[in-house]
């Protein structure tokens, strides 16, 4: 670690939004040649800080320096020109444009005033080659999965000749293989004249990639710790302000133990949801499995394995063939509305697109799935809705100035909690949660695990789709592993370990890409 002048330094930074003091006298310094992790709970102010560094917001107070010279980027473009490249938590992609067009937006090569798309595509292909990312430059971004979109963002950020690379939860949507690719890219990037700021809620990653860790809490600077000599437990303690039991896999739930009657009985009767021979034109091939009452069924697989597509097919968001039985009876599910009528709810991995009414407040979002139940005489009882929303805000510790805050203004993790709250209020018998903890901080994650486990204990049945193997192993009674649209194995938790899951998840037929075949719907 070099002890020279900081590559990038921010001092005394404050930033307020109406009703929220997002940052209060925060500082941060990034040294040349290091990866600095930035951690903190949901809403701690990480993304806000990064947006200040990249010129999207202006600080209310404080100074920023690059190489010892004061800097105040007037906008993202200027930040780029200064050598600061950012991967934001929320994607900033143009879905109708191609991958290549997205990456080089604002920097189109031209001849005689005309854009040279061939050159654009060539450059993008070269970039992907260099980074080892399997993307087709000519694919429209709207055809990519969340993971694919994330890779586009990464490629875009690296397409600049940047000295400082800032990444805000780049791995939230990625599986371990892609994470490995990303880390390789990061390591290639770091040199004595460059540096990386890396935000993540995944402690293992931080341990693996970072040199130092800066911790924020409630918009305030807490500490900066050297990774090598710091225990994960200490980092978390600094984040939440107290000791917390977390970050350790507590081991699989004991299938034998019965929690008094309605408990989690992974071993037998009462199949709530049975799926047989589910196929879609795009990807799925003959997917079959059963979900039992009180069970948590995990779905593991690599990016693009088809887990999300299974969920979408079950709830009727995409067309499919095959049989879905609810409580032993075959049902026809043509739309998510039908699914909810049959007691099946689905929390999407893509909260911005399929989860939130961004322009509306927390109350309306939380009420959305349950509106008919919140009416009397045909009229919506808003007071009840507000009440329910407040309850959820407390229960899930959603950090928001009030339940009347538009969800657009919440931090990423808090948005995710709002989506979860919506489904908790709806109280479905079968809940399919797709990447339920995407962007959620360690402490809250643990809370959500407890919550899901408690739901199962009450007799609800839950499917957890997750790209984090520890999460699946932590929660699931049984684990379905998919590869390329097929189920390649179903394991009882007791028998499962990461190695075995990975083996099943990589039983490929041929090569794979981040590209999907079917438009959603």
């Amino acid at each position, binding site marked *: 670690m070099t002890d020279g002048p900081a590559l990038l330094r921010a001092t005394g930074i404050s930033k307020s939004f109406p009703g929220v003091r997002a940052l209060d006298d925060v500082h941060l310094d990034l040294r040349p040649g290091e990866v600095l992790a930035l951690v903190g709970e949901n809403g701690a102010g990480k993304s806000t800080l990064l947006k200040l560094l990249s010129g999207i917001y202006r600080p209310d107070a404080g100074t920023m320096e690059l190489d010892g010279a004061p800097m105040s980027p007037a906008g993202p473009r200027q930040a780029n020109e200064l050598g600061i490249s950012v991967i934001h938590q929320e994607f900033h992609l143009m879905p109708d444009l191609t991958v290549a067009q997205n990456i080089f937006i604002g920097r189109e090569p031209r001849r005689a005033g005309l854009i040279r798309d061939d050159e654009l595509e060539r450059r993008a292909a070269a970039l992907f080659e260099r980074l080892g990312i399997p993307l087709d430059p000519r694919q429209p971004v709207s055809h990519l999965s969340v993971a694919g979109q994330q890779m586009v963002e990464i490629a875009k950020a690296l397409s600049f000749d940047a000295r400082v690379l800032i990444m805000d939860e780049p791995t939230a949507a990625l599986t371990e293989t892609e994470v490995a690719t990303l880390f390789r890219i990061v390591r290639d990037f770091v040199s004595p004249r460059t540096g990386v700021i890396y935000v993540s809620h995944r402690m293992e990653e931080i341990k693996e990639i970072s040199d130092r860790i800066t911790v924020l809490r409630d918009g305030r600077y807490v500490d900066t710790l050297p990774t090598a000599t710091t225990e994960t437990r200490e980092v978390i303690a600094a984040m939440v302000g107290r000791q917390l039991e977390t970050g350790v896999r507590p081991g699989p739930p004991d299938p034998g133990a019965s929690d008094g009657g309605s408990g989690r009985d992974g071993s037998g009767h009462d199949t709530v949801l049975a799926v047989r021979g589910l196929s879609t034109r795009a990807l799925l091939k003959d997917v079959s499995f059963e979900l039992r009452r009180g069970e948590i069924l995990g779905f593991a697989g690599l990016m693009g394995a088809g887990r999300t597509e299974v969920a979408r097919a079950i709830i009727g968001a995409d067309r499919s063939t095959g049989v879905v039985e609810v409580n032993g009876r075959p049902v026809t599910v043509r739309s998510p*509305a039908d699914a*909810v009528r049959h007691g099946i709810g689905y929390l999407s991995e893509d909260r911005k697109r399929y989860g*939130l009414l961004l322009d509306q407040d927390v109350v309306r979002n939380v009420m959305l*799935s349950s509106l008919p139940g919140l009416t009397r005489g045909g009229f919506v009882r808003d007071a009840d809705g507000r009440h329910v929303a407040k309850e959820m805000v407390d229960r*899930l510790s959603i*950090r928001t100035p009030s339940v009347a805050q538009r969800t657009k203004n919440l931090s990423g993790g808090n948005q995710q909690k709002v989506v979860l709250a919506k489904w908790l209020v709806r109280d479905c018998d079968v809940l399919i949660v797709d990447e339920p903890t995407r962007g959620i901080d360690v402490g*809250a994650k643990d809370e959500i695990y407890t919550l899901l486990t408690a739901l199962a204990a009450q007799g609800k049945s839950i499917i957890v789709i997750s790209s984090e193997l520890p999460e699946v192993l932590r929660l699931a009674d049984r684990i379905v592993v998919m590869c390329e649209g097929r189920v390649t194995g179903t394991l009882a938790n007791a028998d499962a370990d990461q190695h075995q899951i990975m083996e099943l998840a990589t039983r490929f037929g041929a090569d794979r890409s981040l590209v999907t075949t079917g438009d959603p719907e």
Partner: protein
Amino acid sequence: MTTSGTTTAPRRTISFGNRQQLQQLLAFGGLVVIFVFFSVASPYFLDWANVKGILLATAVTGIMALGATLVIATGGIDLSVGTGMTLCSVMTGVFLANLGLPLVVGVLGGLAIGALIGLLNGLNVAYLRLPPFIATLAMMMVAQGLSLVISGTKPIYFSDVAGFGQLAGGELLPGLPNAVLIFFVAAVLAGVTLSKTLTGRYALSIGSNEEATAISGVDVRRWKVVIYVVAGLFTGLAGVVMASRLNSAQPGLGLGYELEAIAAVVIGGTSLRGGKATILGTVIGALIMATLTNGLRIMSIPQEWQKVAVGIVIVLAVYADMLRRGKEA
């Protein structure tokens, strides 16, 4: 859960309800400015007779705009309100003047035709997935053609239908023409529909994020149909009021009213992107349009300059409104 989670909790003291009311007050402020200006500019402007005239001029377009607000809330658009209204007028004429059905039946029949128009729009938009612009543009043409076909391109007169003219022309509340009363009652109904019923809530949700609404288990297609049908009812009501005011159904009328109605909605602050809508705003928007036209006429501004003035004032009014809201938000 994490302890410190909600320490930064509710610092905002003004509640959401109040904030929204404030916004509408400001749009209302624009209207007031226009009112004050004309009152000073012309001694005749503030006469109750003239104000009544403005209100009457607002009524029909205003009622159409109410329905259009619901559709626009979903992020859609309804180009068929103008000629659709005409078709409802004509059909009311057929029911009452030609077939001699009882008054109530004829009026309900007119509303039903409006609902039918809405139903077809809704089915085309929701199930055939046509862009609302296309679906309602087609309906605009079809309704225009059918009005002419059904009426034989001749007005249908209600002279022999006892009491029909009173529907809009009478004064249940002394001094206030029924057409205006109907408009206000319709506005209240539309307001309640938008903010208190599932129809309105889902309209806003669909407009805000259709995919998320669908994934949340809302039967988006069915509700879209419902929304268009409700909007159609307002079109029908506008048709009946129009017919009653003219005491005749004029089959050639109607084209161009759709733009006026949509303009009222947008000036009122409802976003064409969907997700944000306000009925009070629409009422104010419709009043602003009618007041402007009336005031400029009262001042005997030449017709050609009136257009220019209205255009400029609309830009100013909306911009000022946005400025104020921007500051306040």
